[in-house]
Every structure is written in structure tokens, then in C-alpha cells.
């Protein structure tokens, strides 16, 4: 039956892999290359390969786990390769089916994909609510505007609390934030620090958001920002600030509900990019359908600490998926 198995393997692989596969199979046939594809009741089998951003990873991983509880024979593998690395090395060359990204795709990446006949479809799913937090002992500030945050965090900006607002104490602040290689840092630089300049570098950057929490807890004049998931776990140890985009706006309390309703301005959108070619395959289509249907579910907030997407977004994504799959 080695022959049948070989045939099936070949069918499953794209043509550019054929020659290599055939050669290597010859070598390994002796070792007994057994291909016993199991399939469950609805006959769905195959594999779905997800690469991309480590920020999207927790969502994709949870989705994969839940999907595979229903479809045991579909192998959904999830990897965190970084948004860019995922597009560059896996998605655009056609090796992965879905790429998670913490930012929209860049035009160079789109053209790279086009060269290989891969058509990415942008879908905004869930989001991460950035939280600006201070020590629980800090009693002078409850709400901050983007402008004030920019003053604190931009290069050559304020040094003391009083520099920002004269009613605040004349004490130097200690700054904690995510390190420069993280997507959170990038989003904050681009959207909050904004045109005003670069993100300052003389703060305490760290890869582990727990360190930010520790730092804030110990120092009444400290301020820092991190993903909401960390705040949720440590809400008794630090005090989160309300934020508003400009002076005239209402203050928005950091909560996943507010972010989902669009009332919290520091919600950072997350994306997944399935390729149109991949969703033609039934297992990818079914997985995407499951993913999108669940992208507005409550458990995303409860279990992962991310912002579920709105019902409208989920519906729009679903109909885009239907169009692409040709149903």
C-alpha cells in the first residue's frame, strides 16, 4: 500500500514540493512511511497552519483548541513567528494558511504575496486594550488625555509630574513600559506619542509585563503601560487610569466591554489574514468560520483577557469569508 500512500501524500502537497517529496519518499519508503489519515464523523480532515504575531497567538491557540474538540481529525498548528516573519517566511511563500498580525499588512508584503499568487484577506478580530497604570498610592490623577501621555512618554518630554500639570506633585516620575521590540510599544509610539516625536528611551523597558506591575506597586510616582490581560490579573496591586483621546472627550474606563463598544481609545486592533487560496480548502474554511463566529464571544474577554470583536465586525468578516470561499 506504499504506492497508494505515496499517491495520497503527493495529492496533498503543492506541486513545487512534488519532486523533493518523491525523492525523499523513495529514501524513506523502506522505513515504512505510513499515512493513516483519520477523519471524524463529518469527514473533515487535513491541516490548518497558523503563523504570525505572538500577540495574536493566545487567541489563535484557544480557537484551535476549541475547534479541535469538535473536529478531532483536523490538525490545527499554531506558531508565533512575529507578524512580519509570518508574512515573509511562511504566509506569502504559501507555506501557511493563516497569519496573525498585530498591525495591518504592509504594501511590500502584499506585493511579495502577489508574486506567489497568495491573496491575503484582512480580518480584524479581537483587540488588546492597553492600560496606563500607576501606583495605588497615587491620588492625584484618575484620567489622562493622549496629549498628557505624549508629554510623559516622548523624547525630551516632561521629567516631573508637575511639568505635565501644575496641580500634580513636583516629583520625577519613574517610567515602566514594554521593550522596543514589542508590538505594544510600536502601537503606543504611533498612536499616542504620535507626530510629537519618538518614544523616549530612558524608561525601564522589559519583556515581562509582570515587572511593570511590580515596579508600579513599589513606587508612588511611577507610571507604566501594558496589555489589559496583565491588569486584570493584578487589578488589586495597581491602579489603572481612565483615558481620553483629547481634552474635550469623556474619560473612558479601561474595560473590555468599553473597548468592544469602541468607547475606550487605547484599544489596539489585532488581525488575522487567511489567504483566499487556503479558504478554498474545506478544513481551512470551517476553521475560519469557527474562528469568526467565536471572535465576538464572551470567553475571549473572560479567559484570554482580550477584547472580543463587535458583532458587526464578526458578521462582515463572515460574509467576506463566504464570498471568498464561493458559497
Amino acid at each position, binding site marked *: 500500500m506504499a504506492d497508494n500512500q505515496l499517491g495520497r501524500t503527493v495529492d496533498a502537497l503543492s506541486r513545487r514540493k512534488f519532486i523533493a517529496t518523491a525523492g525523499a519518499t523513495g529514501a524513506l519508503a523502506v522505513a515504512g512511511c505510513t499515512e493513516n489519515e483519520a477523519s471524524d464523523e463529518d469527514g473533515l480532515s487535513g491541516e490548518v497552519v497558523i503563523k504570525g*504575531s*505572538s*500577540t495574536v497567538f493566545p487567541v489563535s491557540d484557544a480557537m484551535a483548541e476549541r475547534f479541535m474538540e469538535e473536529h478531532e481529525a483536523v490538525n490545527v498548528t499554531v506558531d*508565533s*513567528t*512575529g*507578524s*512580519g*516573519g509570518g*508574512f*515573509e*517566511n511562511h504566509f506569502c511563500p504559501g507555506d501557511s494558511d493563516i497569519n496573525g498580525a*498585530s*498591525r495591518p499588512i*504592509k504594501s*511590500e*508584503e502584499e506585493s511579495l504575496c502577489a508574486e506567489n499568487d497568495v491573496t491575503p484577506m484582512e480580518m480584524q478580530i479581537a483587540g488588546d486594550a492597553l492600560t496606563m497604570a500607576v501606583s495605588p498610592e497615587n491620588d492625584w490623577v484618575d484620567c489622562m488625555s493622549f496629549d498628557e501621555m505624549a508629554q510623559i512618554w516622548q523624547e525630551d518630554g516632561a521629567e516631573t509630574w508637575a511639568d505635565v500639570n501644575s496641580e500634580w506633585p513636583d516629583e520625577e516620575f519613574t517610567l515602566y513600559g514594554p*521593550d*522596543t*521590540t*514589542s*508590538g505594544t510599544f*510600536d502601537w503606543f509610539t504611533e498612536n499616542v506619542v504620535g507626530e510629537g516625536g519618538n518614544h523616549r528611551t530612558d524608561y525601564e*523597558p*522589559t*519583556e*515581562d509585563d*509582570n*515587572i511593570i506591575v511590580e515596579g508600579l506597586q513599589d513606587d508612588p510616582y511611577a507610571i507604566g503601560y501594558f496589555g489589559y490581560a496583565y491588569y486584570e490579573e493584578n487589578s488589586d496591586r495597581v491602579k489603572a487610569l481612565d483615558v481620553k483621546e483629547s481634552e474635550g472627550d469623556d474619560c473612558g474606563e479601561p474595560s473590555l466591554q468599553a473597548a468592544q463598544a469602541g468607547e475606550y481609545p487605547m484599544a489596539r486592533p489585532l488581525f488575522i489574514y487567511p489567504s483566499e487560496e487556503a479558504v478554498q480548502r474545506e478544513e481551512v474554511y470551517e476553521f475560519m468560520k469557527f474562528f469568526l463566529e467565536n471572535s465576538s464571544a464572551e470567553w475571549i474577554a473572560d479567559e484570554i483577557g482580550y477584547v472580543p470583536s463587535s458583532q458587526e465586525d464578526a458578521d462582515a468578516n463572515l460574509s467576506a469569508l463566504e464570498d471568498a470561499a464561493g458559497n
Partner: protein
Amino acid sequence: MSTDPIDADLTRSVDGRIAKERLYHWLLFGCAALTIFVTVSIVVTLAADAVTFFRQVNALGFLTGTTWESSRDTFGVLPLVSATLIVTIVSAMVAIPIGTAAAVYLSEYASDRMRSVLKPSLEILAGIPTVVYGYLALVYLTPWLRTAGLELNLFNLLSASIMVGIMIIPMVSSISEDAMSAVPDSLRQAGYGLGATKYEVSTGIVIPASISGIFSSYILALSRAIGETMIVVMAGGMQARMFDITNPFANLFNSGQTMTAAMVHAVTSDATGGTPEFYSMFAIGLTLFFITFAMNLLSNRIAMRYREEYQ
């Protein structure tokens, strides 16, 4: 094959047997030649993609730049090199004294029974996967050092370096011990004959006589430390920082990114950089390959010298 013995089995053709012998000869040669192919393909594949990288990034800027911010396409390799040097130096400070002392003990003092326990144990130490060492550094060593009063970042070069040091101890000890055991016993006897004590023989005769072997073990171990990846990735952090001369200890207590960590970073992290960051991996890889290659070559040369002396 002029020295082939005469074929005694007259019923089989001699030609066939010679052909068969030739076939095996070339087949085996092919196996050996494959290693050349591996080296060549390392150089070629790394160089080809490194060229792509240097088309987009100034090579001089790469080699002399002091900032590495791959997400903003700023590629100066010096922060990575400085972190690599820190790890190498600190790990050497851990491994060289301990490794050498262990080698002296095993070669000069240990009873047979002791050796039969200690040597395999050290060998098993060498077999522990680096991902395990990385885990030990991150989850146990860093908290211990923090409890001991050091103001360490959760990810820091100090505990990563100490772990790398522990990892390369068996390398230093086993190669140095081989070198010491190779010192002819007549030299030791001559020493004792002159009335020297065991201590004097060990430090005054055995170590100097095997010094080239010992040095070659150091170089090999250091080249291993330079190329070590998982420990520094897991415990050392991912923040590329230039060496801060004003505050040397801060460099140890903070996170840092070595060359190998930067390569892993290029394929796993959530950096938003595009093409050049990915290709930077090949440029760093090539640099790393040449550094370790040169060190191994050097170590070989030194070891060669000592081999000539006593055989």
C-alpha cells in the same frame, strides 16, 4: 589497488571484485565528502542571503553601529557583539577555574573508583539539553540571585552567563583531562625523583606540559559559549543594549541580546520589521560561523602542537 591480495576464489571473476571494491571505496569517500558539502553550503547559503541584507543595509554601518533596533531597520551589530562578549567572558570566569580544577583532580588525584563515578556524571552534565539550562536559569537561578540581594532584571545576562558557564564546564574538564593524562608518566616520575610533592608535580610539571591542550579546551569551550542559543534566549532577554561603560555591572544585571538570540528573534518574535530584519539573521549567522570557525581552527592548531610533542 596494487596491493590487492591474490583472489583465491577462482570461480568468481576478479574484474567484478575489483569493480565492487572500487564502488565501495567511492561510496565511502562520498560519505566523507558530504562534510565538505555541508561546510560549503553553510557558507554559500548564508553568504547569498547576507548579500541581500547588505544590499539594503550599509555593511560599514552594520559593523560599527551601536544601535540595534530591528523594528526600525537600524542595524548596528555592536550591541549584539558586546552582549555576546559579556556572556563569553562571564561564562569563562565560571567554567575555566572549575573545569581546570576538575581536570587536575580527575587526572592527578582521583582514585579509580572516584573517577568511575565523577567522569560519567560530568558527561551527563554535558548531555543536558540547553533548553533545560535556560529554564533553570530563568526559573531558579535568577530568583535565587535576587533573593541574595542583587537587583536583577527578570531577564538578565548574569544568570544566563553563569548557566552557560556551568554548561561548558564538562567541555573544559574532559578535554583538559585528556591532555593531562597524555603527559607521559616518566615526566611525573622524574619530578618525584627530584623530591617534588604531588602538588608541585601537578602545578609545576603536568599543567605546563599539557598547557597547549588545556588552552585548546578553553578555546573550544568559549566558542561553544559564543554559539550558545537557548540559554541566552530564555534567560538573557531580547533587548539589544550597547555596553554601558559608565556602569559595568548594570550591563550584567539588565537584559541583553546576543548574536544568537538576535537570530532567534528574527524568526520568532513579534517585531514588526520586514525584509531586512529577516535577512539580518543570515549576516549575523555568517559572522558567527566565521568567528567559531576561526576559534576551532586555532584550537585545532594548538592541540596539534601538543600531539606532536608526546606521540
